[in-house]
């Protein structure tokens, strides 16, 4: 299943909305969008993942990339991830630096 990625700015937040499946085949699209988002200079990058039904470690790699690209004071939020996806994020320990939020 393909991945759809959209990028928008809401106030001081850059919003990336994902829908579909995030694996090694589709993650490059997410990666490119992160690169654009990092250049916006907002204080928060919010990644809306409610529409993501599956995420492999390639998605984790993108989240780590996001952390590396944004300035230290920028908050990265992952919003609405389904339980198996948030569990994968926790398994990698990324919940220590990324804010996981239900809404």
């Amino acid at each position: 299943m393909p991945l759809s990625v959209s990028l928008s700015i809401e106030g001081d937040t850059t919003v990336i909305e994902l829908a579909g499946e995030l694996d090694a085949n589709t993650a490059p699209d997410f990666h490119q969008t992160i690169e654009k988002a990092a250049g916006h200079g907002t204080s928060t990058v919010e990644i809306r993942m409610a529409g993501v039904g599956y995420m492999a470690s390639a998605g984790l790699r993108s989240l780590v990339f996001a952390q590396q690209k944004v300035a230290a004071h920028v908050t990265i939020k992952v919003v609405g991830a389904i339980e198996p996806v948030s569990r994968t994020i926790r398994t990698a320990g990324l919940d220590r630096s990324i804010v996981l939020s239900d809404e």
Partner: protein
Amino acid sequence: MGASPQHGARLSDPATTELHVPAVLGSLTAIAHFVRAVAVAAGLDRGAAYRLRLAVDELATNIVTHGYRGGEGRITVLGRAGAGRARIVLEDAAPEFDPVAGCLPPATDLPPERRRIGGLGIHLALTSVDEFGYVRREGRNISTLTVLAGPRPQR
């Protein structure tokens, strides 16, 4: 992670299904469909089916990117659905690679910018299944993954 009694065996049961795909990332979708069908036939719940897919996906991705290193190759996927149990065997002819030996737990004590993500996919795979077996036979890597219906294994 217990050893499977059919550790690395080629499945010969009549119920076994097979998929042969080129070792490219574009094959991941076909592999996912195949695994989903096996999970459904085995009566796995959504959580167990997700775990099986994640494990197979990570190992297949590893075969494509690190095994064949982008070169030509093929992956054979065998599936068998038993009552409350799904088993997938992945075979490839890339250089020898034992996922158990190549498993690197996440370095969660390091900040993200210093994090090494390589090996994490294998870690996810091995912690997602209930049984895992690997054998190198006749120049092929053969990994056997089994997931049981029911809650995630506690480790």
